[in-house]
């Protein structure tokens, strides 16, 4: 069976890594080589908000060297990503351009959710018991150099992801700005970390039972041994932390200054959970990138469906904001039915459907805060939330669909979203129109309709359903909201409901 080769390059604040893989359907994915060029560009980014000329030069030179390496394995496919952690550099776009000019490669900048998705993907493909672990309450701590990302699973469902500016380099950088004596350093780290995580416990974790903790992140490499998945007992980590804290840490020893925040973060989580040990798989973002590639190209499955995670996380978020889930999930189903009918003739794709689904699930979450301005509040909540493997643009689409679910649909200039294209506007209009119809069909929140399905006939978009109840309000709402649909799709929506006795 033919073997395909693939290389993933990731540029992040601690350096540039490349992993080279081979894959085929029969034997799956195999890593064949790995290169790492260490750099400390995180420091300048967190301190000055920019990437220096020298760092950009160095990155381009290393990528160029990596390209040569590809010839040694005749690598056919290459993807180059820039980690989300570098987006804090205001001049990141310049780096992307320089890389393209100097190496001919197009670097993609990861957004938080995509990076998060790839990270989880890498864990799922490295940990054979991942699906088993997440049946129980599980926290995944991605302790990066800039940020800490906490992902929560239970009953095999993703409940949510929360990001804190508590990366190990950032903490070190923060401490270096304070005039801290070496002896005070451990205590201050503890204070900084614990105050943030206390909020996590109160607002997010509440009384949820957490039995498993999985930790990943660059600095874990200092602790990790030769295992694919390293396991540390709680006491073992506590002892190491105490040992480090007791040491009068030498400020010049970067390793100490990174390891201590790492252990403090892990220790804090251990204390707020029932976990007795920590799993530390030896993963890299590159593993997630290759998993995604392998699935798209060869349907080589890494062991976990992350699309379902996105839906489950959205449902969890909607529940947190006390949404009417009966209505939302009912509308989601109707919306999916309507979408099916128009998707092919109008060229709508899976991503558009994901937007429609998420909008349906998250409908009215802003009302939890205020009834008056709920659409705008919903918009803000969605904009600030993270949905695994959802691009920034698609998240913006979801937020705007709900922002304009009732309001008159705006002119493109009134959208007030920088950098959106006319494509974005068209998709927004289409998805909003579909959502409005679907929502109208449950305007009383009583889920009166059954067997909802749609057809296109001549110039009409005919929605048929059956019901045992009267549906006057639904019919009224359907007709009221049909204007945008007619304008966007060029079809007149017609609602035909058969009353059953």
């Amino acid at each position, binding site marked *: 069976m033919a073997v395909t080769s693939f290389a993933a390059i990731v540029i992040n604040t601690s350096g540039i890594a490349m992993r080279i893989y*081979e894959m085929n359907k029969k034997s799956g994915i195999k890593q*064949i080589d790995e290169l790492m060029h260490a750099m400390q560009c995180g420091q300048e980014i967190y301190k000055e908000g920019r990437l220096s000329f020298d760092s950009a030069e160095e990155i381009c030179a290393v990528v160029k060297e990596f390209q040569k390496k590809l010839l040694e394995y005749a690598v056919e496919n290459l993807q180059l990503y820039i980690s989300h952690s570098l987006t804090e550099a205001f001049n990141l776009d310049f780096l992307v351009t320089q890389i393209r000019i100097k190496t001919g490669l197009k670097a993609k900048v990861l957004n938080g959710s995509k990076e998060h998705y790839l990270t989880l993907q890498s864990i799922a493909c490295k940990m054979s018991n991942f699906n088993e672990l997440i049946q129980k309450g599980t926290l995944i701590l991605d302790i990066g150099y800039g940020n800490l990302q906490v992902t929560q699973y239970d009953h095999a469902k993703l409940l949510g992801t929360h990001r804190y500016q508590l990366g190990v380099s950032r903490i070190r950088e923060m401490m270096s700005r304070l005039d801290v004596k070496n002896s005070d350093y451990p205590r201050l780290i503890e204070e900084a970390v614990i105050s943030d995580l206390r909020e996590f416990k109160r607002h997010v974790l509440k009384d949820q039972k957490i039995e498993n903790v999985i930790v990943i992140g660059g600095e874990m490499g200092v602790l990790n*041994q030769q295992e694919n998945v390293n396991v540390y007992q709680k006491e073992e980590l506590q002892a190491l932390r105490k040992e480090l804290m007791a040491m009068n840490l030498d400020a010049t020893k970067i390793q100490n200054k990174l390891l201590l925040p790492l252990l403090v973060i892990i220790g804090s989580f251990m204390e707020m959970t029932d976990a007795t040990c920590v799993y530390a798989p030896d993963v890299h973002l590159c593993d997630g990138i290759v998993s995604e590639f392998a699935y798209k190209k060869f349907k080589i499955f890494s062991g976990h469906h992350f699309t379902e995670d996105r839906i489950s996380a959205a449902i969890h978020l909607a529940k947190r904001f006390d949404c009417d889930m009966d209505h939302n999930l009912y509308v989601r189903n109707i919306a999916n039915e309507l979408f099916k009918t128009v998707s092919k003739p109008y060229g709508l794709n899976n991503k558009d459907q994901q937007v429609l689904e998420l909008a349906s699930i998250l409908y009215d979450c802003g009302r939890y805060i205020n009834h008056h301005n709920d659409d705008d509040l919903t918009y803000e909540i969605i904009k600030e939330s993270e949905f695994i493997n959802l691009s920034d643009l698609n998240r913006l689409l979801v937020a705007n669909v709900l922002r304009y679910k009732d309001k008159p649909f705006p002119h493109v200039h009134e959208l007030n979203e920088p950098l959106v294209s006319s494509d974005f506007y068209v998709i927004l209009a289409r998805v909003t129109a579909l959502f409005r119809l679907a929502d109208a069909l449950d305007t009383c929140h009583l889920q009166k309709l059954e067997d909802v399905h749609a057809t296109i006939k001549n110039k009409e978009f005919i929605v048929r359903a059956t019901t045992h109840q009267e549906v006057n309000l639904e019919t009224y709402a359907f007709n009221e909201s049909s204007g945008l649909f007619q304008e966007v799709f060029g079809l007149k929506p017609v609602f035909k409901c058969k009353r059953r006795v």
Partner: protein
Amino acid sequence: MDLNDVKYYINRELSWLQFDYRILEEARSKQTPLFERLKFLAISASNLDEFFMVRVASVEDKVLAGVNRKDISGLHPKDELKAILDESHNLVNLQCSTFQRSLVPALNAVKIRFVGIDELDKKQKAYVDDYYYQNVEAVLTPMAVDASRPFPLILNKTLNIAVLLDKQGEEAFATVQVPSVLNRYIALPQDEMGNRCFILLEDMIAAHLQELFDSYPILAYAPYRITRNAGFDLDEDDTENLLYEVEKKLKKRRTGEAIRLEVASNIDERLYRFLKDELDIRKNAVFYINGPLDLTFLFRFYGLDVDESLKFPAFSPMPSPMFDDRNIFAQIREKDLFVHLPYEQFDPVLDFVQSAAGDPDVLAIKQTLYRVSGHSPIIAALAKAADNGKQVTVLVEVKARFDEENNIIWAKKLEKAGCHVIYGLLGLKTHSKITLVVRKEEEGIKRYVHLGTGNYNDSTAKIYTDLGIFTCSDAIGEDASALFNMISGYSEPKHWNRLAIAPYWLRDKFYFLIDREIAHAKAGEPARIVAKMNSLIDKQMIAKLYEASQAGVEISLIVRGICGLRPGIAGLSENITVRSLVGQFLEHSRIYYFFNNGEEEMYLSSADWMPRNLDRRVEILFPVEAKDIQARVKEILEMQLKDTLRASIMHEDGTYSHVDLRGKERFDSQVYFVEQAKNACAKTPESSQAKIFTPMQNNEEE
């Protein structure tokens, strides 16, 4: 018992000299064929040259720099210098007497004579004159020293003649270099007794010396030779271009500070003073030589066509029975393969690189080169590979002592051919011997690796004993890639599968392996270590071995050269034995065996147990995993431990003596391996035997 006590350690330089004594012992032994004795003497002379250029120079540098740190045996540099110079004098005296009193009479007995100018018969005299005018006179450059002409630059290790002239009543000094482009000895017509006669070039020149200074009478003359400091310390922190820095330092080597002056024992006092003052050399660094200076000419003299009984039986490396005519990669895919040099041919190593160069499925070749031969077929194959579009990466160690110049030439040649050349690593010497071939096969990328204990040098592969393994194990292949990535400047891998790499991980690996034996011994289980290496001088390793001995681990060391450990001391090292093998072939392989409570583990390496190998070089320790190869490696150790003819046993005081043969079998391990290789070759299936075309015959004619 304090394991750090200096009395338990032997000085490195004195131990080096002990090794020279052992070589000299072979030259003195009547059991050794005469011409082999000459060769051993040449080796001992050549070793001593290197000893002065590198080791004595280093100690002298320390003295001059005022360094006062004691060595592992507790000697301050000043005392160390005195001790090694004293011992060197004894050694040189023994070398001289060996030549003059043992070897010259032995040569005479087989009708070979070195004759002086006064001993020539008429025919020979005419021959010498004729030879001199035709070949020598034109290449001589006499140089006078006076107020306007300073003392000339005398190159390292060149032979010269110092001349004292009477310049109109005043003494004047002049010097003539004995041309190194000419053969050091000249064969003369046989004398009346039928002896094959030879005259040394310096004697021939001396006979015509007055002609070079015809206007000034010669008052005295004497041959002399100087040895210069050849060590160079690169300030690598400030080195942007390693190649350029090495080239610069090389130029300096020829003119480094004089470390040793050798003069004829009958030198005129005025000449001696003049040389000593001009060269600014300390008194005990002047060696009076009774006989010819620079006995390394005997290397060449060894090549003389003489009766075969005067040399070891001729031996050419045999084809290895593990290899056949098929594609080498196909053979490695079947199982790990092994080569035992010089008993077996180096050809599989060449075949490995040459096949890779021409194989369309090979994508990349990577290799480390430390010392290569003059017309290296390896280099040619690598250049060809680059020409064929392979990705070729070669680390050429431009800091390989005494091969710097050679390696720079090779490196430039490879670079020109399109290879990616790494000129060594800053602060480290890359001493490992590894070749990685990356091949794209139907099942995907496959890596083939050759790992060896010796250099990729087809010339020394005929005289150095070394071991090498070919494997396509994924684990070793991954490690090999990781090593080359590291060498290319990328970060270290998170872990190594099988290889242990110096300078970062090797020492710990050895400690782990020894500690495991200690634990077995303490648990009352049998524990044993057999380690074969060239030198053992690392204090921490020695202390670890003492600790193991104290715990009851049985330790057999086969250390060819320097050994800083004192074996057989009650309560400290009574479980340790040390033997050194000096034979026809230079023992060079490094083998480390650990009993591991019956789960035997054995490793091969490019590294000795010296601080430089463990801390300042890139070295590899690799496991022997295939059972059949394990059996062969174990046999090598067993045979060497059984050797009674080539082995010397080290004593507590650091001296050595030959094995007492009483009641023991006379056994030469090197002869055993020669016979083994011959027998194995004889049993090899037809396919790898010599190819003979068999003509079809017309049966009717019979």
